[in-house]
């Protein structure tokens, strides 16, 4: 079965970009527009990996990461954000993120991080 990735970003453009990239490389993709929707979709679908933005309305990516980790201590969450401040990376890792990719978006880095986490999931 194809590994499932939940792409969480408030920007439709970024969701489209990640969907195209990941489906071309053999992943199933689900999308969520904010952290709250991501938590709900995680409960329903238990994806292998979550690709999570930070700055989003309704619920930000750090809060969503904490909420998902409460549901599943084994969740594999990769943060992909423009907010590459050192303090933010530390906050994300403390929340439970397994990797942190700083934008500008580099497809090869995203693929590499997702592949690594997908191999380690479940």
């Amino acid at each position, binding site marked *: 079965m194809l590994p499932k990735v939940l792409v969480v970003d408030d920007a439709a453009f970024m969701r489209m970009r990640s969907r195209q990239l990941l489906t071309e490389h053999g992943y199933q993709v689900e999308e969520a527009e904010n952290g709250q929707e991501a938590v709900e979709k995680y409960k329903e679908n238990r994806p292998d990996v979550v690709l999570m933005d930070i*700055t989003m309305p309704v619920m930000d990516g750090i809060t969503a990461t904490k909420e998902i980790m409460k549901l599943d201590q084994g969740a594999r969450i990769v943060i992909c954000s*423009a907010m590459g401040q050192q303090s933010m990376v530390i906050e994300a890792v403390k929340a439970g993120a397994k*990797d942190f990719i700083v934008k500008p978006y580099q497809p090869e880095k995203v693929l590499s991080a997702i592949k690594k986490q997908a191999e380690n999931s479940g």
Partner: protein
Amino acid sequence: MKVEFINPFVEAAYRVLKQEVGAEIEKGQLSIVESAHTSEEVTVMIGVVGRVQGAVFYGMSEKTAKQMAAKMLGQSTPVFDSMAESAIAELGNVITGLASGGLEKAGYQCRLAPPTVIFGRGVIISTVNIKRLVIPLSTQYGRIQINVALRENGPPLELNAPGSGAGEQVRRL
């Protein structure tokens, strides 16, 4: 307006515009203005809170926005639709996010709000007593004007000071 606020934005804009749309950039004369900001045809606005507060604006013509969005989307954008809008908003978001890393290094930790896109030239946006640094950039897609309206909100943190978070160790899993 502190000089530490300038370079992070200039460097981030060069890097992001080069990488995302292959822009060849020429920086114009910087200026500092006190009057309210008047929007261009397309303006991306991003709020900033923390040790610095205010907003950053990225203004351009609709033609410039369409051309850059087309490059990002890999298809022509005869109409500036919601996907093109999202792409241009993301450009502003990534430049500001990258610049926030430079601000943190100077001791000014901050957080960003999701981007807002304003359509229509001539909308007057007051930055309420915050002076604006204007950074004009010329590209092959047209002119992009970055307006940085930020002020200090408390003294800068030492990078490794308690509470800065920056002295802690990141344990990669």
